[in-house]
């Protein structure tokens, strides 16, 4: 039973991180219909910014997270302005290739500055909490708490504020949103900023129990793609539920099936589900 609960905890941790990354991806997709392959590089850039702030500037973990969110939001907005905006009328293939260009640039840039080594990120939350026979590492609890808090805040923002509503309106109908006077450029920039900040914070949350390295975003972003395809591209609840499904599938798969093959589980799940339902698990229309 303890072991089972331990896997639930692992699933929640992974699911939280995946949900945060997938949320950003799905928001950007909703607005621009761009599958942003560079999102994983944003995630990586977040971890490196925090790493830089903590080791070189000597500030603490929370400043690291805040800085990462700001830096990645900036990178994200810049890439919208400089790359995706000029391409908004181009065929889909061009978006994808351009986003791959950004991805390659950021990865190579990080490697040029910090080298190919793996780095450890320090966290103030190293203690282990004992609770009814369960061992709860504080950092994992922090990830779960912070992820759910951020998801809840994002939901409130999208549902309860006018600015948030403009994002939802744009995602629902671009022309309609323009007709009621919503500035498409502003909304696109805002969405990219939010997506970037979420990716940056997710990276800083997860990095202490993983490591910081240049290709750290690759698996996470690919899984985030799996999540948003499963949950329906552009769907916010779909990204959250999908993130948790993949998180749990991986945690339990690693424990009950094989640690070696745990990274394959998400992809195998996608292949399986799309083989049976090409339109995705929760999507209403066909792709």
């Amino acid at each position, binding site marked *: 039973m303890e072991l089972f609960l331990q896997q639930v905890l692992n699933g929640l941790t992974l699911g939280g991180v995946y949900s945060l990354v997938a949320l950003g991806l799905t928001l950007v997709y909703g607005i621009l219909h761009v599958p942003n392959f560079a999102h994983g590089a944003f995630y990586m850039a977040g971890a490196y910014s925090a790493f830089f702030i903590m080791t070189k500037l000597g500030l603490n973990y929370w400043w690291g997270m805040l800085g990462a969110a700001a830096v990645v939001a900036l990178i994200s907005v810049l890439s919208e302005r400089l790359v995706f905006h000029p391409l908004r009328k181009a065929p*889909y293939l061009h978006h994808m290739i351009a986003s791959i260009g950004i991805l390659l640039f950021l990865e190579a840039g990080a490697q040029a500055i910090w080298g190919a080594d793996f780095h450890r990120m320090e966290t103030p939350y190293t203690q282990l909490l004992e609770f009814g026979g369960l061992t709860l590492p504080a950092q994992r609890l922090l990830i779960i708490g912070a992820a759910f808090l951020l998801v809840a805040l994002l939901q409130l923002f999208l549902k309860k504020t006018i600015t948030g509503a403009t994002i939802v309106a744009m995602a629902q109908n671009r022309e309609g949103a323009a007709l009621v006077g919503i500035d498409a450029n502003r909304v696109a920039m805002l969405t990219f900023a939010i997506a970037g900040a979420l990716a940056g914070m997710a990276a800083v949350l997860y990095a202490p129990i993983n490591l910081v390295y240049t290709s750290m975003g690759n698996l996470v972003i690919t899984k985030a793609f799996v999540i948003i395809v499963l949950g329906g591209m552009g769907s916010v609840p779909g990204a959250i539920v999908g993130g948790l499904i993949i998180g749990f599938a991986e945690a339990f798969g690693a424990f009950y099936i094989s640690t070696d093959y745990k990274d394959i589980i998400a992809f195998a799940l996608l292949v399986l589900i799309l083989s049976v339902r090409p339109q995705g698990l929760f999507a209403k229309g066909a792709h």
Partner: protein
Amino acid sequence: MKLFSSTTGWLLLLALALAFPFLAGNDYHLTVMSTAYIYAIATIGLNLITGYTGQYNLAHSGFMAVGAYTVGILTVDHQVPFWIAFVLAGVVAAAIGFFVGLVSLRLKTHFFSIFTLCVGYIMYLLIEKWESLTHGTVGIIGIPAPPNIGSIDFTEPRPQYYLVLFFLVLSLWIMHRIVRSLLGRTFMAIRNGDDLAQALGINLMRNKLLAFMLSVFFAGLAGGLYAGFVRFIGPGVASVEHTFDMTMYMLIGGIGTLLGPLLGAIGVPWLTQYLQVLQDFRFVVFGPLLVILVIFLPYGIVGTWMNRKRRKEALAAQAAVPGSPREVSSIPAAKGATHA
């Protein structure tokens, strides 16, 4: 004027390629060129499915790895003669491509790409983890070179170069035959619009699947050649970065043209050779270059040049016969734009 679209242009290129070993300063240059040719063969394959048929397959390097590992496993672990293993490399890649294509080609536009990205990861992870079959992260060492033909020894750089060149020319010729045939026209019709192609009576699934299998067949053969040429392979062959590399070659040269991917696949490695400092950081330059190309020169060098030429010809024709319709461009103009 019609230098590259005519036979003389291609023969000139072939003559240059044949003379290259005598012009090259050392064996190292030959090795660089041979490697570039191998990747050119794979890029030609990727161009068939992406440039001509409009489906961006992100698992392409995975299929190249399938070819490489087919040769590696068969020759090293099962003592199968190289040439049999080499043929099987293409066949196995195409067979796996059949099943992957059957599922993935039901998806459109970027869903297909995301799906194949995942397939590529599964291939990479399987190669890395399935140690009893693939030797895991250690890779396969000591793959035999192609056996001697007569007194030609394929461990020497020069015969190796000509061997690879032979397969490159063969691939280009086959690709030329395909794109000039009704089949090639069918693929381009699918690229220009699924619905339109279907309205013309084209069986979408069957033709996409055929394009996909042909495309990965080239990848498999390139992988097989790579295994026999480098004689050591690791899971890295399957990594998606190689697909990104090939995308770059294709895009710089000109997507959806015969010459473009070839130029890109040969030109870019040489450029990185001369920018030695950039070896590890080449994407600091090539990443933004990719973005700039996509924004300002989406048809690459060859595509832009051909479009310009075509426009000139059309203008000349229009001046001669007032009111005559312009020639329809065969360069991808707005593929996929209508079915987002």
